[in-house]
């Protein structure tokens, strides 16, 4: 459960911690309203989806479509799926339900051919890059840990491999066909876009979300919350606090 501390203090940020490692998210309360990934409640009483009636129709359509039941995969194969899921899970620390369907959102983008308009000269097409990366992760898992695939490794080993991927420090059969640093950028760009396009992730970070035609008028510094926004986690009793927040 959450310990008594103020969010004015930045001590939870990895750069400022003695071991530079993030805390287990259990220091935060559980989400009390709406859904967040893994129900982590940094904004426990905030649900951006309660404001959808104030969004324009086109925006509402695009955003709420992300809540539809995900899948099935169209671009990635059944063979690729376990490693793909494991990689996205490590990258975004989605180790429990509810999960933002990152795998399905990336798959949908690749299947539809919605690429981003540029390709590094030392790289294949983004679609081929993803396939090679999954092969490369499996190859490294075999080489480093004697496991049949990346998905078969324990989470500590998976994290180690992803850390080496982030540093561009992977070599092997599939990796030689890629610039590893560029491959990291291509894959993370897409996975992060998928995750942070999802309203559950907006709940987790307290983002106010779409605001047309409503607008944002509380620009701070004194008045910072719109009627639909909620402050970060506190240790106060939500039952007592929440009614006072109704804008």
């Amino acid at each position: 459960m959450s310990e008594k501390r103020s969010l004015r203090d930045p001590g939870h940020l990895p750069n400022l911690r003695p071991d530079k490692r993030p805390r287990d998210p259990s220091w935060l309360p559980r989400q009390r309203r709406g859904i967040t990934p893994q129900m982590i409640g940094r904004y426990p009483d905030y649900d951006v989806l309660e404001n959808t009636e104030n969004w324009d129709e086109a925006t509402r359509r695009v955003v709420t479509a992300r809540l539809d039941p995900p899948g099935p995969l169209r671009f990635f194969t059944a063979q690729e799926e376990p490693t793909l899921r494991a990689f996205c899970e490590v990258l975004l620390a989605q180790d429990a339900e509810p999960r933002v369907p990152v795998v399905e959102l990336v798959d949908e983008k690749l299947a539809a051919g919605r690429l981003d308009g540029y390709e590094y000269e030392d790289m294949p097409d983004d679609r081929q890059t993803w396939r090679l990366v999954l092969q490369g992760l499996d190859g490294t898992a075999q080489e480093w840990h004697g496991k049949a695939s990346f998905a078969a490794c324990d989470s500590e080993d998976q994290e180690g491999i992803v850390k080496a991927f982030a540093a561009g420090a992977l070599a092997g059969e599939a990796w030689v066909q890629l610039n590893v640093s560029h491959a990291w950028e291509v894959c993370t760009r897409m996975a992060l876009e998928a995750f942070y396009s999802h309203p559950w992730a907006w709940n987790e970070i307290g983002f106010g979300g779409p605001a047309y035609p409503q607008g944002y008028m509380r620009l701070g510094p004194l008045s910072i919350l719109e009627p639909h926004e909620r402050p970060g986690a506190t240790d106060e009793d939500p039952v007592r606090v929440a009614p006072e927040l109704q804008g």
Partner: protein
Amino acid sequence: MIGNLLKGARGPKSNDSRYLLDVHRRDLPGKDTMCRYPESDEVDLLIVGAGAGGSVLAQRLARKGWRIVILEAGPFWHPDEDWVSDEAGSHRLYWNQKRIIGGADPISLGKNNSGRGVGGSMVHYAGYTPRFHPSDFETLTKDGVGADWPISYGELKPHYEELERELPVAGQNWPWGDPHSYPFSPHPVSGAAQVLWRGAIEMGIEMRAGPVGIVNGTFGNRPHCIYRGYCLQGCKVNAKASPYVTHLPDALAHGVEIRADSMAVRVELDDAGKAIGVTYVREGEALERFQRAAAVAVCGYSIETPRLLLNSTSPRFPNGLGNSEDQVGRYVMVQGASQSAGRFPDEQRMYKAPPPEVSSEQFYETDEDRGFARGFSIQTISPLPIGWAEHVIAEGHFGRALREYMRDYNHWTTIGVLNELLPQPENRVTLAEEKDPYGVPVAHFAHSRCENDKANMEYSKKILKDILQAAGAQDTLTIQRYAHLIGGARMGTGPENSVVDADHRVWGVPNLFLADGSVCPTQGSANPALTIMALSSRLAERLATKQIRAAAMELAR
């Protein structure tokens, strides 16, 4: 003084776009009743690209009675349906067709700097509209780097002023470059930007609010900004300036045809070497079409303009148009755009208000003590969640660490620089071997920084850190990136050093003009949109008043 008294009251003289827009819907009035010209009709001017350059050129000359068609590769927007308050959902606004990037410092394209569709990249620019400084036009003479323009700041100045009334630009009186004021008062500054401003004051750095092309007050049928923060996703409000709302409504009312979904493939010449029109392909068709014209203006920006010129080969011009001296596609520039974010005890919620709010041009010109030539500007910015995630992962945080920094989003505020990177011949657009679905080779863009570029970027990163520290930031995150595009077909004094002359005319082709950012020999550290528009405005004036020697052009009027 009188200018200050009249803030909020000065409208443009010859542009009715603000009154032509519909208050209740964002579709362009006049689109359904727009003029249509047969392909066999020799129009007075055929423009390639409905962005900042092409739209201003069309609007100005249409008012002088020119019969004009604009070919635009992308769609004609229906903003109410097509644009959304959503980062990932705005993918269609960008030029997503394949391009290849290389060099030691490859440049991300697509959403970073490339638009597609009626209105061009300004549909998704941040709204920031500073002028270039007078020094930008003579960096070779003054600083020994870059190039001198064949025109001076003074020649653009009246066009800057007119465009600032048309967009309209809101901002504080501007003390840098050529000091000037703006027609509209500055927007309110968000708390997130105020924190940074305080840090700058602490450091002895002067910052000012604006200039942004965003309505602040009443301006015809365009509403006041609602500070929703999605400037980069297309302004559904119609408050942010783009040619879509500032020039194309007036252009349509004066007989311009905008032919959307039409990708130019080649500029065609007759046996005498005069442009006779453009071959193009409509989206979804295989057939090549051809539109006749008495003159052609290419306004496709720094990647597509060189690509079109290079692809327009003929026995007379085997290396493409304007390229007899191997100048097309060279000297493409981007700006260094490192950004640093700082963490503060109170919630900042930087996603509210326009992304750029206060800025400084104090470091714009050369200061020998800094150890490099030219300089940079400083601007506050405010990434939305997906943009913020790019900041976090740039420092190597993934998994739980990434999630922790992301959850902290509301406590952060961001400040960035725009570094003037110098024009270099090897930073260039060439044609790759690979072809697009229309059979046109895709563009290859190589980019590497020189030592001066690196020194500039390093120095400015330190200034950002200092500002954040002075503001009391508890933690910082920094991302090194690049923004904007400029150059690639620059203006100069002869075909051996440029692609066009001071009148934007392609060397060797008397009735072919380039009117976009590609003609700029230098870029300063200002966002380019306003300058691109001002250049087109000047060109239009010179064409309309026949100051350009028209003997070889034989224009209809």
